[in-house]
């Protein structure tokens, strides 16, 4: 590490950056050995709410589920089924989902298409953290759910749920686009159960 006197900034060499990255991976690996449970408690909640709040909720949920903009997070194989789902035949744009936001700040939905490795895990976590609330995650494919065929490998995270909370799991290796669309419909259903305003 050098100190740039003029600018008052620290200048790191590539090696130091690599070490820092390695340390971040190790610490994440040490902290993420348990799966994160689904955070939403809507299933147990009692529906004792008045009409006004319900209709406001309905409106907000309608808007949210009608314009789910996916973030770009395409690590591996499933990405191609995701792209195929976006392309002409399956056409996710029908649901208003064709705006793939490259910037996570503007995205609502993370479709984790592919195997997650420990080296990649900090970046995915960071992308998730950078996404603005409310946000949802669809774990696509066997690797995203449990590590799939690679679960026993030394560098593979057994499922995205270790590092980020997952809302919908779409099984398959890779899932067909129809399955993904079904998963998205399930997410729509989940979003419409959401209560934004506590009554």
């Amino acid at each position: 590490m050098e100190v740039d006197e003029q600018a008052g900034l620290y200048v790191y060499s590539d090696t130091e950056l690599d070490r820092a990255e390695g340390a971040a991976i190790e610490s994440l690996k040490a902290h993420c050995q348990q799966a994160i449970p689904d955070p939403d408690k809507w299933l147990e909640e009692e529906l004792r709410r008045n009409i006004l709040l319900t209709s406001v909720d309905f409106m907000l949920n309608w808007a949210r589920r009608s314009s789910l903009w996916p973030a770009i997070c395409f690590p591996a194989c499933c990405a191609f089924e995701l792209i195929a789902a976006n392309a002409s035949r399956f056409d996710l744009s029908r649901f208003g989902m064709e705006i793939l936001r490259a910037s996570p700040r503007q995205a609502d939905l993370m479709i984790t298409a592919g195997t997650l490795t420990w080296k990649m895990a900090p970046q995915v976590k960071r992308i998730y953290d950078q996404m603005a609330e409310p946000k949802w995650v669809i774990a696509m494919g066997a690797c995203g759910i449990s590590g799939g065929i690679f679960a026993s490998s030394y560098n593979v995270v057994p499922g995205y749920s270790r590092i980020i909370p997952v809302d919908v799991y779409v099984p398959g290796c890779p899932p067909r686009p129809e399955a993904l669309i079904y998963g998205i419909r399930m997410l729509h259903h989940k979003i419409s159960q959401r209560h934004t305003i506590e009554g």
Partner: protein
Amino acid sequence: MIASPSLNLEHYWQTLPPDWPGGFWWHWLVLTVIIIASVLTLVMGYIWIERRGMARMQARLGPNRVGPFGLLQPVADAIKVLIKEDIVPANADKIVHWLAPVIAFAPALMIFAVIPFQSGTAGRLADLNIGILYVVAIGSVSTVGVFMAGWGSNNKYSLLGAMRNVAAVVSYEIPLVLAIIGVVLIAGSLSLNQIVLAQDIPFILLQPLGFLLFFIAGCAEINRSPFDLMEADSELVAGFHTEYSGMKFALFYLAEYAEALAISAIITTLFLGGWRGPLLPPWLWFVLKVIIVFSVMVWTRTTLPRVRIDQLMALAWKFLLPLALINLLITALEVLAWPEALPWVMIPVNIAIMVVLVLLWSRFFKLGWGRVEV
């Protein structure tokens, strides 16, 4: 938010139609509301047109689940974006980051203060006698907002995108203004209403080269493809608004389309005869023409790839600028020869001149295959 209309109130009172309810302030209030509402509606319509039109061109269907034909899609998007969390990056320059979207969006809206969308005084908020100058001046302000966004975000991609934007706008402003001067020469006025009234023959026919230059420069000015280097998806993530979320992002998103709307409105006013047209009511003609211009922009966006930053600069300085100067010269000579009004004979002549010049220049000028030193 809206530019104050002409200060000459006495004069203004007189120009109001006699049956206008109330006076100056009523006029101001009603038209401001009308303009903001219609601009926002049109912008949503634009987003819908672009997403559906683009989808059709890409052999897809496009949004069709929300409302009839997906018409409510922009509404859903707007509500969702507005209630989304607003993130300010930790090391951002907070004030600049907060102000940037406002500064980028406001000018796009302010341009509509002088654009006549209807015949008569009620058809515009202000009849500035220097209307087009006002448009050019205000139009450049949004660049400041974009650069503030790039600077304030403390993100390298944002900064790169913003710097590209500034470079592009500074370069393309010159051919843009030169193309406008041709129109002003023929119309003999800087007032947009006078320019519309002067178009017995739409200026696109009398000024075909000017129209071409204005269209290209205008597209570059508002970052439409193929000049969308500032938010180039495949290079700079999302360009200057990479770090923006929620409502601020919505403002940028709106500003992008509002600027497109403004440019189409200006093109309509300057070259397509504004609100003039047979049978249909004038405001409908205006909206129709604006939408047609925008559809062309959507078309280019889906078909053309992006140019490189140095090619972008080269196009402005080596292609558009000389042609704009030549166009100005020719127009000036024509106006000198027929000071009253240009005869319709000049239509084929001007079109021929345009074809010859463009062909000639594309001989001289290549975008350059390979490395271009600027």
